[in-house]
């Protein structure tokens, strides 16, 4: 046994086999490269969009771009109706997602008994996993006709239908992140409030929710971000009419979003035509909007404490 021990590799005076060392250096370098890849991809996407959209600015006058007529066949490239369409739908979606999303989060986090919470949470997560084309499909076949009949409209394909569906799509994001934020509020806050004679309801509104407000704000912003970026759902239920919405009543008319425009028209444009470049211009506008919304939302100071549960929703 003494002889065997003298042959122990670990007793030899080298720390690590040089061949292994070389391989480890290579793998470490690859890992580091992978780490930086995210930056490279964002840069690539931005640059590409930029390169393909700048010709649009040269080929089309600003007055055209800022007009309210989008009719590419006759060289009308007013993007305002599209921006307006995205805007009105996003506002509508927020008006739905905020109360229902935060309300559901409060219910699940503060009020519902444990067994109910464990049952309902996965259901909300499922909503988040539904493909947008399935929701658009159902919206087209069920929601729009329903709206048409119920509200006596010429067509159910409208901004309202889009808002309802996008609100639904944003709700799971709002619920899960808000719920984490509410969970993270220390129990001692609630206990202190109750000890002073407040009801649970009062505690929620005066203590818990304000304490979680940065997380809830993040949740809503990320939900909005998701709504802005939706394509298929809006393409299928908003009617795709590029008319600039001017007031609340336009909620009941068809609109067209920026995203739907790109999706619908990209297949038909000639490569490198003006129309092609304009679509890329719309693309870069979307890129920048989402950049601002998402980075701001994440800069709002809020550390996720519950690791896996939230991420996997």
């Amino acid at each position, binding site marked *: *046994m003494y002889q*065997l*021990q003298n*042959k*122990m*590799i*670990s*007793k030899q*005076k*080298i*720390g*690590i*086999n040089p061949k*292994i060392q070389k391989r480890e250096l290579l793998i470490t370098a690859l890992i580091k490269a992978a780490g930086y890849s995210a930056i490279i991809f964002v840069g690539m996407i931005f640059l590409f969009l930029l390169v393909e959209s700048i010709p649009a600015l040269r080929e089309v006058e600003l007055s055209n771009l800022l007009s309210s007529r989008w009719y590419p066949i006759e060289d009308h490239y007013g993007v305002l109706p599209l921006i307006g369409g995205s805007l009105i739908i996003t506002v509508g979606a927020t008006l739905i997602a905020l109360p229902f999303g935060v309300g559901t989060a409060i219910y699940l986090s503060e009020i519902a008994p444990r067994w109910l919470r464990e049952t309902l949470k996965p259901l909300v997560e499922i909503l988040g996993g539904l493909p947008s084309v399935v929701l658009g499909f159902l919206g087209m076949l069920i929601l729009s006709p329903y709206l048409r009949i119920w509200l006596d409209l010429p067509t159910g394909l409208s901004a309202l239908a889009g808002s309802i569906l996008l609100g639904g799509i944003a709700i799971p994001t709002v619920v899960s992140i808000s719920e984490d934020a509410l969970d993270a509020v220390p129990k001692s806050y609630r206990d202190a409030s109750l000890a002073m004679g407040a009801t649970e309801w009062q505690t929620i509104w005066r203590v818990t929710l304000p304490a979680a407000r940065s997380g809830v704000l993040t949740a809503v912003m990320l939900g909005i971000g998701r709504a802005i970026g939706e394509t298929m759902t809006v393409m299928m239920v908003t009617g795709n009419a590029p008319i600039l919405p001017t007031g609340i009543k336009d909620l009941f008319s068809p609109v067209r979003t920026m995203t739907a425009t790109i999706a619908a028209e990209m297949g038909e444009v000639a490569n490198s035509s003006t129309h092609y470049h304009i679509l890329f211009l719309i693309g870069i506008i979307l890129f920048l909007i989402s950049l601002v919304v998402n980075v701001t939302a994440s800069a709002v100071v809020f550390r996720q404490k519950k690791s896996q549960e939230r991420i996997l929703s």
Partner: protein
Amino acid sequence: MNKISIHNLSLTYSDGAQPLRDISFDIPANQISVIFGPAGGGKSSLLRTLNRLNDLTDIQDQEGSVLLDGRDLLDPSLDVIQLRRQVGMVFARPVVLPLSIKKNVTYGLEVAGETNKDLLSETVESSLKKAAIWDEVKARLDDPAIALSGGQQQRLCLARVLALEPEVILLDEPTSGLDPISTGKVEESLQDLKREYTIVLVPHSVQQAARTADQAIFLLQGELIEVNSGELMFTNPQDPRTQDYIQGRFG
């Protein structure tokens, strides 16, 4: 003969804090040297300097020299992987790796590249015997190590270190989470082990220090206050601060 010689060792964190200031003393071979003192005194930092585990923290500056058999451990070109096989460490809370009992013991050998199956199983048996736990686990070597009790886990951690045949064994409050019986077993093992190895121990109580020390070093807030043989330190400490601490006037 001195196994380790420390000269003017000072450590500085990146935020400016200095856990150790100008420490100098020797660690004789085949003895139990006990480094004791109140919390925050720099004892763990000192221990972690001896196996360069401090490299994993944000220590910014290491001044002075630490000689192991004449070689300076603070030399940046030193092979730290090999060093950590020569200077093994047992931590305060028993941290068993999420592997089987057997695999825990052979881990150090396997990462070194050892594949000789006979050697590995022989080492498992001899290390677990030296750690006084062989009889308790020999029938379930493939069971997950997490199934063992706290005291058993800590002895497994000791076996894990012994498997690498180190020259020095560092123990950082190894019995702090253990019941008195397990603690007694560990202290007994140390008396056996010092015949083959040099032991550096941070005790979790002054009483443990008094029970085990061949040589005792008192560290207070990063400074070395007193060095003496175990017997003399605890019967007749020289420095008033040492006296106060030993008698429990502060802690």
